[in-house]
């Protein structure tokens, strides 16, 4: 006599307990703290904030601890948390021209106002595993205060002065398409479902929170000829900007905080515009913290998705708006892919029943043929 399987609740509780054990690991080692993650795994924190769409280093670090380093899971935690937050204001646009830059490079000019400031970057490290890091906190730390500004410049340039955007220089010479404020209310993808064809504000919002790996692969594909747009890194700047709001009750703007962001502007291939002039086109990328790979990929994709603006045929995956935007959110993607783990035995049984029926029919057809 078959006895039905029961005990789903108990199994779930036990699974949670096993997960907690795995997350903690060997108790001989000290438990990792949230401040340690926030400070020492800062690039992970940057990614989780950007894709989780919440700027809060401590919360992102907490999410990373809770998900035992599974960053997509951590991003999901932050996103779900975001749903519970009240919305008080929309901030004023960030003034990245007044960024206090820690890092600022341009591939389009050897030297330029503001200089090339390398900042903290993996770029010129040699990818050799450093076994000294295996020692636990016994290695002498680098004294940060004594380090120079990693600046490539003939003069000593003060970083406290605002650094002009490279794109402004190109715009002044009328060499590049200008980004103009269209005075329209931007879309809000967190409130409204997507519609296609999309608009640029909705596209950019989707791309900011889009999965870095997905954007990286698609950006890479444009460089290899799948929708080539001849990119140059016009500028990448990383540093702190102020966030301000303009409450109706006050009638003037007030600063509410400071955040670290990365901004990338690509200079892309030139084209003749409707006014007859030939100009470079451009792409834009933005992210929280130091997220270069992400912002560069995003800028490549932003440009690829501008295909209609330049009468380009959308022949490559990176140019397909619905394809890119429907699949770039890793919270959606991970949810749906992983949902295949859920029981599907009723639907599978439906397919089995049909398959058995088809086979039976073809067998009886064969039998009839034999007679």
């Amino acid at each position, binding site marked *: *006599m*078959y006895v*039905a*399987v*029961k*005990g*789903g*609740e108990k*199994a*779930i509780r036990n699974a949670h307990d096993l997960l907690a054990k795995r997350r903690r690991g060997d108790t001989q080692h000290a438990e990792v703290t949230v401040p340690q993650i926030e400070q020492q795994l800062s690039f992970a924190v940057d990614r989780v904030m950007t894709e989780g769409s919440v700027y809060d280093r401590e919360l992102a670090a907490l999410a990373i601890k809770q998900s035992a380093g599974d960053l997509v899971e951590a991003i*999901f935690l932050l*996103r*779900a948390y*975001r*749903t*519970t937050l*009240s919305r008080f204001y929309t901030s004023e646009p960030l003034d990245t021209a007044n960024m206090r830059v820690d890092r600022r490079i341009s591939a389009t000019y050897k030297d330029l106002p503001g200089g090339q400031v390398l900042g903290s970057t993996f770029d010129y490290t040699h990818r050799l595993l450093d076994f000294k890091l295996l020692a636990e906190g016994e290695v002498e730390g680098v004294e940060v205060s004594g380090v120079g500004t990693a600046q490539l410049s003939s003069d000593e340039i003060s970083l406290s002065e605002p650094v002009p955007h490279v794109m402004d220089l190109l715009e002044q010479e009328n060499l590049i398409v200008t980004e103009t404020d269209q005075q329209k209310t931007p879309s809000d993808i*967190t*409130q*409204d*479902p*997507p*519609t*296609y*064809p999309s608009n640029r504000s909705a596209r950019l919002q989707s791309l900011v929170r889009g999965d870095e790996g997905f954007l990286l692969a698609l950006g890479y594909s444009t460089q290899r000829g799948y929708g080539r747009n001849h990119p140059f890194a016009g500028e990448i700047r990383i540093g702190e900007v102020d966030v301000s709001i303009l409450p109706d009750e006050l009638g003037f703007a007030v600063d509410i905080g400071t955040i670290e962001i990365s901004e990338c502007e690509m200079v892309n291939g030139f084209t003749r515009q409707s006014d007859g002039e030939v100009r470079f086109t451009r792409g834009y990328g933005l992210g929280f913290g130091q997220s270069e790979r992400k912002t560069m990929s995003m800028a490549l994709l932003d440009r690829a998705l501008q295909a209609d603006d330049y009468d380009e045929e959308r022949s490559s995956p990176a140019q397909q708006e*619905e*394809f890119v935007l*429907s699949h770039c959110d890793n*919270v*959606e993607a*991970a*949810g*749906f*892919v*992983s*949902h295949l783990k*859920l*029981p*599907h*035995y*009723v*639907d599978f*049984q*439906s*397919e*089995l*029943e*049909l398959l058995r*029926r*088809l086979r039976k*029919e073809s067998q009886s057809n064969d039998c009839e043929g034999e007679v």
Partner: protein
Amino acid sequence: MSDQTVHASKVRDGYNFAYLDEQTKRMIRRALLKAVAIPGYQVPFGGREMPMPYGWGTGGMQVTAAVIGEQDVLKVIDQGADDTTNAVSIRAFFTDLTGVETTEKTEEASIIQTRHRIPEKPLKEDQILIYQVPIPDPLRFIEPSEVETRKMHALEDYGVMHIKLYEDIAQYGHISTAYAYPVLVNNRYVMDPSPIPKFDNPKMDRSPALQLFGAGREKRIYAVPPYTDVKSLDFDDYPFEVQTWEEHCVICGSSNSFLDEVILDDQGHRSFICSDTDYCRGRVESQAESPVASNSDRGVDK
């Protein structure tokens, strides 16, 4: 109160009733009212991230969260069973965030959230059946672009669907869709009934209950009001058929319900049991009360 009912309790500290904020509930409620006014049409809505992953029932949960009140009695099933892990998880969520009474008994529930099955026991007026939907558009696997499918629904141009079904017949001698079988609602919109087996499709037609559908990841809500025509697509010479089994349920003897196949050993011996665990339990209980009647009832389930 039966063993299958859990009493109402308190809402978890620090959270709004049913988790969603009131503005989100209003947005979903407005979408639901449009959905019942346009049966079978997928209303876009601003779906939110929920504490469960997309694809795991967030759409159904958002609909339930917008609809449910303190007086409701909630049943949650997955694959027809109350005890499957995800049904357990979702029911626990609503207990935690609403405190409402829950039940496993279909007839005692005012709201039933379901994944992939319609309960065997016919639903009554004032019951609400809320389906979890992964891919809301029945045309999606034929036409991936939403821009195109929106036009097709607008123009009532379902030619591609009929072609697909016809091609199945040409290749297999049957329409080869066994679940998520497309239906025509109120003689206008072709709708995806969610991945219920086609066995369940007839239950949707002119049901006295209100049927609501939520797709969280795809951000669509749709509805079928009570007493609305829901017809499974077919051809005159290839009429719609449901699944049948030669076997009966080894627990209650039913031959009219959807059966799950259970593999018993390495030799491939198999047993069949009712997918709807509450229906099965109900039959066993009534057989215990009147054992003679149950034998003659075999094959006749009401």
